[in-house]
């Protein structure tokens, strides 16, 4: 500690902090998929006056995975530490991604000087600087989700679109098809496309005829062998990872106007894309 006869100079207390000027501030960016979530960017700063001043900036992100931001203004001094915590809601891993940057400037002229923290936050685990490792939003395990898709009208195929800002790995999909009295063989296939072009198509191994109700399960578990007498039909798929805007659809040869798919139930692993 350096001292002069007249005025003691301020010394760092504890470990070194990050020196910031009045032109620097913290930028919190959150991408979130769960409704009702709020977070807070909190921390402490050692001012040149010797005061240790806490700060806490609340932030309510959107729930459509779009990036929303909040600025925490800093005074000249040393940033001691910061945390990002969930204050409302209960997101699980893979649903709420936060990043804290040290920036200078505003808007298009903003300069990112350093990324201090980046990772998913949950109701029980926040981010901390120093301490938390910087993570990519597509790194590690995603959020396991059970999704009830749209129940299409008669004569329409099942179609689920990977939401904007999401990346999906389809683990399983189950859907029922009730066929009308039209005499025809229906062959249900599960397709994946990029919004325009189909890049994978997995047909079922068993046809469905008129006036039947069958439950289709698509997964990478394989197909049933031998005489299939129960009501379950399996579709073997590869473990596909689909990007935003990609579609998971049925494509049914011989689909009749009165044939009716039920609401598909999807088991997916989801990550926030590009956060």
């Amino acid at each position: 500690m350096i001292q002069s006869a007249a005025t003691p100079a301020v010394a760092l207390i504890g470990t070194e902090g990050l020196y910031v000027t009045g032109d620097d501030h913290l930028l919190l960016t959150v991408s979130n998929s769960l409704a009702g979530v709020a977070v807070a960017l909190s921390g402490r700063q050692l001012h040149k006056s010797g005061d240790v001043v806490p700060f806490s900036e609340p932030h309510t992100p959107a729930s459509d995975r779009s990036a929303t931001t909040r600025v925490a203004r800093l005074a000249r001094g040393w940033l001691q530490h910061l945390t990002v915590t969930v204050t409302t809601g209960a997101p699980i891993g893979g649903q709420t991604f936060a990043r804290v940057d040290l920036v200078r400037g505003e808007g298009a002229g903003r300069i990112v000087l350093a990324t201090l923290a980046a990772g998913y936050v949950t109701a029980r685990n926040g981010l901390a600087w120093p301490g938390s490792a910087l993570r990519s939003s597509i790194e590690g395990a995603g959020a396991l989700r059970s999704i009830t898709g749209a129940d299409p009208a008669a004569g329409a195929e099942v179609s689920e679109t990977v939401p904007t800002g999401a990346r999906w790995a389809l683990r399983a999909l189950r859907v029922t098809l009730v066929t009308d009295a039209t005499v025809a063989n229906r062959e249900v296939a599960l397709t994946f496309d990029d919004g325009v072009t189909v890049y994978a198509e997995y047909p079922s191994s068993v046809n469905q005829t008129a006036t039947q109700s069958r439950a289709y399960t698509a997964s990478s578990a394989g197909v049933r062998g031998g005489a299939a007498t129960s009501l379950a039909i399996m579709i073997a798929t590869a473990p596909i990872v689909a990007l935003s805007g990609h579609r998971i659809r049925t494509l049914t040869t011989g689909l009749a106007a009165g044939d009716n798919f039920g609401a598909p139930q999807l088991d997916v692993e989801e990550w926030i894309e590009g956060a």
Partner: protein
Amino acid sequence: MALKRCNTCLGEYHDPQPDGATYFHVCPLVTIIEGRDAAGVTVVGPLESFGGSALLDAAAVQAIRDRGDALTPRQLEVLARREEPRPHRRDEHTLRYEGEKGERRVLRREGRGVTVLDPRDAFAERRGRAL
């Protein structure tokens, strides 16, 4: 927070989802049928509009002809199927936010809107138990 029906495609969906995430409905493609009726007239239209017809593939039509029979007025020989973007389709993904604080979410495509079939959040109790 409800069970909704899309007024364009009549698909029904829950929003929010069981896990609390928002569901962004997008209308499925429409299957277009090109067929030939008993009079030999080519007809084209969405599959959903052929509810009163029996759609037959080539093998079924050939079997009828092999018996020396003709198609009935209700039967339609399917010549081709294709899928097209649905007219007036709805896409609930975000186009942009408007308003002083960005409080209004503008959808990519409104389509013909939605009808709320049940305003209750069907999964709220299940999510509460999970917490």
